[in-house]
């Protein structure tokens, strides 16, 4: 994915094949000799961790689908059949359900890393937008997957979320009826959610290929935020980053395994072990933790001008994700990495806390207080994107950006005399 390759296979068969399908050269140029900035920190291993999680989710998902029955009468029982009777069925299911959590945990770290180090800035805008598309597809996949066990939380979660579409003026009710295939969430809904839940991961895999392609055009961003200038600034992908990524994936797998084997229902909800009952709504409907901030936004949004609260909430919720796609143009700073933007860094952590706060509010029963707090945090959330980032680029005085990656690396090892010697770039402002 990075231009013509100099790769020459060693064997005659390899040469014969390479002339007809140059896949060896593709792999060689993309994952063997591909130059990566040498100063990447461990936050850059989350791409590999996410690739691992996607494969793990597809592998466990396909095997679970061999035993699952997408029928409202049998879905709950078939999941219990997997848990009790199928060989290693309990393992596959707990891997899959906790895998969703791990997938989102990793993707949030991956996104926040991109936000902190300005990875969305030119020339990586398309790479970033593809990432936002992957995130949206992940959310759709996770939501539909959570419906499949057909427990109480599955059913009522599906009811609440599909009802969002009824907020759309004029055609809303037709759309919800169309989504359901009936007049409430029911058997047709479950069946189509299963079909889509099986389809979407492969669409994610397709967009991931584009995402990696778009990554390999400019190459990885790095903690210093300056582009590699000479070959001294980079290291070949193999063996340096293959081993680093593998190490990180295995460490992540330890974390993952702890939850799968010892607290497999920590991220789940007890109510989902009660079969779906369309006549009884649970005490409180709580989505999975990774949707909580958006759920809080949905619930907190008031009437805005002539837009009723219900529609405004839906718009705010989708807007809170869509706004990520506009980051490359909302952030006006010329300096890429947050390491050299002291004021940005404060706002960045405030934004993270804001997201956690919204998540907490999303998990709480609705009261006057949570609604008010939700509205404040909702304002903070959008203010970060729409006010802080555009203005900060104009007002902030960034620190001196190192001239090259090599300088940044040596600087981090405390040899300040080296920094003095390096040709300093003019400080960037405005």
């Amino acid at each position, binding site marked *: 994915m990075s231009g013509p390759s100099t790769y020459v296979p060693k064997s005659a068969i390899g040469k014969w094949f390479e002339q007809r399908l140059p896949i060896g050269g593709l792999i060689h140029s993309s994952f063997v000799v591909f130059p990566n900035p040498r100063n990447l920190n461990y936050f850059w291993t989350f791409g590999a961790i996410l690739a691992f999680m996607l494969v793990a989710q597809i592998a466990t998902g396909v095997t679970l689908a061999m035993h699952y029955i997408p029928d409202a009468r049998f879905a709950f029982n078939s999941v219990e059949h997997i848990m009790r009777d199928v*060989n290693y069925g309990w393992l596959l299911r707990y891997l899959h359900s906790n895998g969703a959590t791990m997938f989102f945990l990793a993707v949030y770290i991956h996104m926040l890393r991109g936000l902190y180090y300005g990875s969305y800035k030119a020339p990586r805008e398309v790479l970033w937008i593809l990432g936002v598309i992957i995130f949206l597809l992940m959310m759709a996949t996770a939501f539909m997957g959570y419906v499949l066990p057909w427990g109480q939380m599955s059913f009522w979660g599906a009811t609440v979320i599909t009802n969002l579409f009824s907020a759309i003026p004029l055609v809303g009710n037709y759309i919800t009826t169309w989504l359901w295939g009936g007049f409430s969430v029911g058997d047709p809904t479950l069946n189509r959610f299963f079909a889509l839940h099986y389809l979407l991961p492969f669409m994610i895999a397709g967009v991931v290929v584009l995402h990696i392609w778009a990554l390999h055009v400019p190459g990885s961003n790095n903690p210093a935020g300056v582009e590699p200038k000479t070959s001294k600034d980079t290291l070949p992908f193999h063996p340096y980053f293959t081993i680093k990524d593998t190490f990180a994936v295995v460490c992540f797998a330890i974390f993952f395994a702890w939850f799968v084997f010892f607290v497999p229902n920590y991220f789940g909800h007890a109510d989902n072990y009660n079969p779906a009952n369309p006549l009884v709504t649970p005490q409180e409907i709580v989505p999975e933790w990774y949707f909580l901030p958006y759920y809080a936004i949905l619930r907190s949004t008031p009437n805005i001008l002539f837009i009723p609260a219900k529609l405004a909430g839906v718009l705010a919720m989708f807007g809170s994700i869509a706004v990520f796609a506009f980051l490359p143009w909302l952030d006006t700073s010329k300096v890429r990495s947050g390491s050299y933007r002291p004021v940005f860094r404060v706002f960045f952590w405030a934004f993270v806390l804001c997201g956690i706060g919204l998540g907490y509010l999303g998990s709480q029963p609705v009261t006057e207080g949570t609604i008010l707090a939700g509205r404040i945090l909702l304002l903070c959330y959008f203010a970060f994107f729409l006010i802080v980032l555009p203005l900060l680029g104009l007002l902030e005085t960034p620190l001196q950006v190192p001239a090259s990656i090599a300088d940044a690396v040596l600087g981090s090892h405390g040899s300040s005399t080296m920094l003095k010697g390096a040709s300093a770039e003019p400080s960037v402002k405005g």
Partner: protein
Amino acid sequence: MTDMTMAKPNMAEPTRRDILYVATAAVGVVGVAAVIWPLIDQMNPDLSTLALSKTEIDLKPIAPGQNIVVKWQGKPVFVRNRPPKMVAEVRAVPLSQLIDPETDQARVKVANWLIVVGVCTHLGCTPNVGGDYDGWLCPCHGSQYDASGRVRHGPAPLNLLVPTYEFKTPTSVVVG
């Protein structure tokens, strides 16, 4: 530096570095195998299927000369109450005439009760009662079996399989 992960285990004098790489790679291979096994084993019969792997057949209603078909593990099982004349006939057939030589005595536990799996040993169709040997004729490719379930006419290569079974009482048998 670029060719470091690939250790060469057959080197004359492995260095400590190579041992580290080989050990890591070996542990990695074991890990991958351990991950793949559950993905494969989940397709094997599960506990609920295994628990249904026995079928009890009541022999009382089967009159002499009558055949019944019982489902066992998803397959048909032929149960035939053979009259003494039929038993005598199949036992008189010399083994040299058989495609898959086997005595009738070796295929039954009680002389009049023939219990065989009704799956043609050619390609798995279920034979119908008929043919020239007082037994079964497979509709798919014309294999014929006699009253002992032995193949008498190709293309099937083997006799009908005798399942494991046990007489609980003289009129009740448990297959499986």
